């Protein structure tokens, strides 16, 4: 199982890439309300980038149930 710190480190890189903001740091409480431009299409791009980076695949239900970055990290950890 992949280490939590590693997940957040990798997620931070992905967030910077997807949202084009070099200052972003992925933390558990982060939600769509906190980042400008986090709309449904960008959200999908984020999830797809996460899937590719970690080599995992989520179900539609898992994707639509996510509420914050903490839940995303937990999901990634469960699948790797």
């Amino acid at each position, binding site marked *: 199982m992949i280490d939590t710190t590693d997940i957040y480190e990798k997620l931070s890189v992905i967030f*910077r890439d*997807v949202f*084009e903001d070099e200052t972003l740091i992925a933390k558990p409480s982060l939600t769509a309300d906190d980042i400008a431009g986090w709309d449904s299409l960008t959200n999908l791009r984020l999830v797809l980038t996460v899937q590719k980076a970690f080599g995992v695949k989520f179900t539609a239900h898992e994707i639509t149930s996510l509420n914050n970055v903490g839940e995303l990290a937990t999901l990634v950890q469960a699948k790797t």
Partner: protein
Amino acid sequence: MGAGLYAELGWLPRPPEDFHARCRNVSEQEGGLGSSIQALARYALDENQLTRLAKLIGEAREQRLSLSPLVPFRLAIVSNATSQFIVPALVASAARHGIALECCEANFDQVVQEVLSADSAISRAQPDAVLIAVDHRGLPLRQCQGDAAAAQETVEAALAHLELIRKGVAANSKAICIVQTVARPPETIFGNADLAVPGTMRSLVDRVNRGIAESISGSGDVLFDVAGLAETVGLAGWHDPTLWNLAKLPFSNVFLPLYADHVGRIVAALRGKSRRCLILDLDNTVWGGVIGDDGIEGIVIGQGDPTGEAHLSVQQTALTLRERGIVLAVSSKNHDEVARGPFQTHPDMLLREKHIAVFQANWDDKATNIEAIANALSLGLDSMVLLDDNPAERALVRQLLPQVAVPELPDDPALFARTLLASGYFEAVAFSAEDRQRADFYEENARRVALREEAADLGTYLASLDMVMTVQPFDAAGRNRIVQLINKSNQYNLTTRRYTEREIEEAQRDPDCLTLQVRLSDKFGDNGMISVVICRQIGRDWHVDTWLMSCRVLGRRVEDAVLQELLLQARERGVDRIVGIYHPTERNKLVEDHYAKLGFALVERQQDGTTVWQLSVAQAPIATLPLEVRHLGSELVGA
């Protein structure tokens, strides 16, 4: 290297680590925004990088900044899926191919309504082309296992549906349709028998795709073979049911960069930007080993040896490309006679000297040699592709001549040919009989150049060519080639106006239009159609809307002969004045003085460099020219 070659655009260099930073700083770079954007687009970008670049292009457009030399193109998309998903990737990938793409999307799943209504967003946008991104879920395809009659009906209904969309586009705009084939879903019902049982999805999609392919020729529309693309990378990966259910994504996001690159190729091909010349390195590309060290007996080429067969496949591919009109050249760091040796005497070589239009073997750097090849062929650097196994040479040419396409190659020569063809640099939207002969034209030209050096003076030389110029108005038989010339000619082109097949058909019928298609033959062979002119009559003036000529026949006084023809017909029709315009582009400096040389008087010089010229028909001199003129199909002028 399997599907990864395609999905990851393996022929393009990997993007730099600081790609996003480079995007941010792009406006500060020298050389113009359009060129900087194109340079960034030339990397193998992933979905996020494409989105970033598309945003940059969008911002530039909002600020009304020039994207030149990118050529504007407006693409409408009608789709039964989420088209917002593909648009940013399309915009960024088009820049890779020299196109400033502007996309206009139909409302979700409003395909038919949008194209049939004259005042829909799509129709009002006046697109240059419409991408019909309809998949198996957007067609009236009803599975009816085992029922042949119902299967026939549903195939016809699906084809009729696509036909309806295309007719709607034709009725409401002059746009070309880019018609997708249907990627078959991988699920089978009977298993292996699906292809044999009528009415299964496997058999229905197969027949629909066949029908689509057959409907393209002669329609003016072009094909985007999504089915072929999806099969190449694997249908199971292409179709992602989760993403369809979740967000109506038409295919897996993994293949978005590839899909978008293909749209970019097609649009670029429509704008005449496909490449025309393949330059081959020799050592370890055309054959295995180094000719200068190993000698003719030592190089590896031919059947019976895996490396020899790999390089043979490079030669076979080059020959097949040549047969469809791609010109071959050689650039090699070698002594000339040593490099030519295998072409002349090696029994297993498929390529021979006669196949190579320009052979550059010397010790100059490759960039210099490639420029020399471009000059010798009268082709632009952006028509060139270099196939070279040496990463250092590739990097050097990319840096010095960014317009030249230089595909990345894997270490294994067995994959050279596949990588070259996957790159799509030679994308063609149509194939005419003249394409097949083009490689010969260039070689005949090289012989003409040789003869020219022997002739005492130009007049004697031209007279010795026994040229016959054939002039006729536009007709259906010539239309394919006319449209091709109009959309491909960049250098000898006064206005660079691009027209679709439909617009050319309209010009042909328009009584106020004078149209000319000109062919030239000489004692070396037939050059085919080499010049196209369109004049539009306004009052008693003819305005030269289009005047273009193939650079193959430069210096043959064809333009003088065409002017004589225009004057002849102007007199017959009672036209007083011919008005010409030169509109400058990146590529047509060659014809800056076209009208001055032909005796036109300058009327106006505009700020953007456009010049307007006029010639009085009554006062124009009648010239004697070293070619015979024949008239075909003209009602006004007797042969």
